[in-house]
Structure formats: structure tokens, C-alpha cells
């Protein structure tokens, strides 16, 4: 989003600028100034800056989102074990408190920066910017950003990532995409985690979770897997390999990518400034 090219103008508000111009008198005699600016435009600017950093250094940045305890860090640990010799991996960890997750990742032998957000229930682009300058981006192929465990707030803040991966663990129930549409709609990939527990639970239907995801007008693939048993992790690794290859191809063409679900305005933006 930006505020100079008109990409904030949607069908819902276009008439405001076409009809009355920017200034108008109100009934009480005070002056009404039309602004039409995205409330998070400052965050979005910083996110675009982060994305430039990533692209300039050939980094693929992936934002992992889920509720607390869905298995984000466990998936990272398993992925690092399997892919450490193939890709240079680093992690930015977002948590309200503690260095625990960064310590778990470092124990796997890859760099990790912990961001403790204190009271903020999400990462924002400024926090990630501080984190990325603590990493040597030239030595990184994939940067995972593990967001604060929360199914609501992280979805509103662009961090500069290229792709969003949303995790849903089987113990949370298969209706979560219907209950938290904003975050699941933002997913480029939905991972159904802890599938080793499917047998024990008995009432989580992956097909039902996918059905709810499709109702969000999402064509994102859904992958069931288990970091514990290793089941289907290969499919996740293949997805990652493909994403790394696509990022390299985009950089060679001088292009970038944002997570697939974009507001109308942002698509317009991409057209006007190729």
C-alpha cells in the first residue's frame, strides 16, 4: 500500500474523492479533510524496506503463524535437521517473553535472533527490521520468522516476508479456519501439524479443515504432517525447495513477491509500478 498512487482507493470509497474533493465544511462549521490513508501504512513502508533487504541479499523470508503451541518451533527444529546441509537457514523468533525458542533453534546449529515483544501480541515490520540487522543476510538462503503464537493479531502486520505459512495443530479442531478467517486466508500454505495424534483424537477431519479453507476463497495447498513422527515432512521440504527456486528466479528477473492474498489496492499498486 502507498498513499501517493491511489492504491488505497477501492470501490467502496472512490466516490469520496471523485465527488467532493479533499476539503469540505461540516454542519458545525469545522473543516473535514479527506485523508484515505491505510492505518498501517507506516508499518507497510517498513515492511517494503525489509523485503528490499531480503531480495538484495537473495533471502527467502517465510512468516510462520499459528496459535500458541501449534508446533512452529518443533517444525523448525525438524526442518533444520533435515535441510541444514542443503540450505543456509536462520530464524527470527517472536515471543512475548523468554529466549527459549531462539535457544532451541541455536541448539540446532543455525543463527537465531529472539525478539521479545513484551505486551505486543504480534511482530511488526519495525521489530523485524531490528532483528534482520543482527543477521548476516548474505549467508542466509531461508529466513524463517516465527511470529508470536496468536491466531488474530499477526495477520494484520506485513513484515516484509515473501510467504505466509499458517499452522493448525490437530488438537485445536478442524473448524479454526472458519473461526479465524483473517489469518487462514492470508496463508500461502496451511500445515496441519501433530498428525501423529490424529488416531488418538479421532474427531479431526483434515478434509473438513480444507473445506473451511476453500470457503475463504483460498487455493493454498494444505499439508498434513508431524514433526514428531516425521510423517509427510518430505512434502513440506519439497514445497520449501520450490519456494527457494521461485525466489531465486524472481530476483534474477528483478521482481519480488508478497504473500498471495492481497487487497485490491495492493494489486492495483503492482500494476502501476511494475
Amino acid at each position: 500500500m502507498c498513499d501517493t498512487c491511489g492504491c488505497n482507493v477501492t470501490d467502496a470509497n472512490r466516490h469520496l474523492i471523485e465527488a467532493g474533493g479533499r476539503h469540505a465544511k461540516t454542519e458545525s462549521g469545522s473543516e473535514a479533510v479527506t485523508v484515505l490513508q491505510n492505518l498501517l501504512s507506516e508499518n507497510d513502508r517498513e515492511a517494503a524496506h525489509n523485503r528490499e533487504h531480503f531480495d538484495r541479499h537473495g533471502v527467502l523470508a517465510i512468516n510462520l503463524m499459528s496459535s500458541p503451541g501449534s508446533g512452529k518451533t518443533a517444525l523448525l527444529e525438524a526442518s533444520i535437521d533435515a535441510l541444514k546441509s542443503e540450505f543456509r537457514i536462520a530464524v527470527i523468533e517472536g515471543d512475548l517473553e523468554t529466549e527459549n525458542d531462539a535457544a532451541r533453534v541455536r541448539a540446532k546449529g543455525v543463527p537465531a535472533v529472539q525478539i521479545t515483544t513484551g505486551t505486543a501480541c504480534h511482530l511488526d515490520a519495525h521489530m523485524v527490521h531490528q532483528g534482520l540487522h543482527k543477521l548476516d543476510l548474505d549467508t542466509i538462503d531461508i529466513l524463517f520468522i516465527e511470529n508470536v503464537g496468536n491466531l488474530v493479531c499477526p495477520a494484520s502486520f506485513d513484515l516484509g516476508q515473501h510467504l505466509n505459512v499458517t499452522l493448525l495443530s490437530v488438537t485445536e479442531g478442524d473448524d479454526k479456519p472458519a473461526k479465524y478467517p483473517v489469518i487462514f486466508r492470508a496463508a500461502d500454505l496451511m500445515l496441519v501439524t501433530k498428525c501423529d495424534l490424529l488416531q488418538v483424537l479421532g474427531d479431526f477431519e483434515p478434509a473438513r479443515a480444507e473445506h473451511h479453507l476453500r470457503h475463504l476463497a483460498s487455493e493454498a495447498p494444505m499439508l498434513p504432517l508431524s514433526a514428531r513422527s516425521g510423517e509427510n515432512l518430505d512434502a513440506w521440504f519439497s514445497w520449501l525447495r520450490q519456494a527457494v527456486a521461485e525466489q531465486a528466479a524472481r530476483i534474477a528477473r528483478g521482481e519480488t513477491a508478497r504473500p498471495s492474498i492481497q487487497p485490491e489496492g495492493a494489486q492495483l499498486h503492482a500494476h502501476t509500478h511494475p
Partner: protein
Amino acid sequence: MHELAVCQALMDQVAAVAVREAAQRVTAVTLQIGDLSGVEPQLLQDAWPIASAGSLAAGAALRIETVPLRVRCLACGGETDASPNRLVCGDCGSFRTTLISGEELMLKNVELERAATGDAA
């Protein structure tokens, strides 16, 4: 909740407008919030007095217009109403749709009182 962070970003924008327009006081602020913006209007209302306290906008009314969800179908071209967890085409049922409106998180306008300039205009 992230509504306080959103409200602080709003306050920064309102303050910038007030300075640019040489306003003495901000009397009202109007937002457009879509059903899929990820922001709860009531939580914004609750956060607004905290975010605006001690500023030119202290005491200003916060008006929130909600924007309905509309989708355009990539299969049949139809434009229909939708709900946050049902964004499929209302005409043909296809899930290949794009959002026309409903993601807005927008500062629409700011009502303000200007400093007297002395001009008799």
C-alpha cells in the same frame, strides 16, 4: 490485542494531518473498517481515548463506518455479498474469487478547527 497499536498508528496520522492543516483542534475522526480487516471496531473505540489523550485530538469523536464484504468471481464474473468465513461466489459457488471490499483499515477523514489566521475570508 493489536487494536492499541493500530490506534497509535491512527493517532500518528491524525497528528500529521493536524500539523499540515495548521489545526488548533481535531473534533472528529472517521475510519472505514472492513469486516475482514482483522480489527474489532469496539476495541478501537476503547483504545481511542487512551491513544489520543493529551493530544490535539483529545476528546475528538471516533466514527467508524463498517465496509461490507463483496467478492468478484473469477469463474462467472458475478459480484456478490460475502461473509468473513464464506468468501465463495454467491452466484455459482466457485471459491476462485477476489475481494472487492471488506479489508479496509482506513483513515477516511479528519474534522478540525483551524487556527484563526486574521484574514477576513
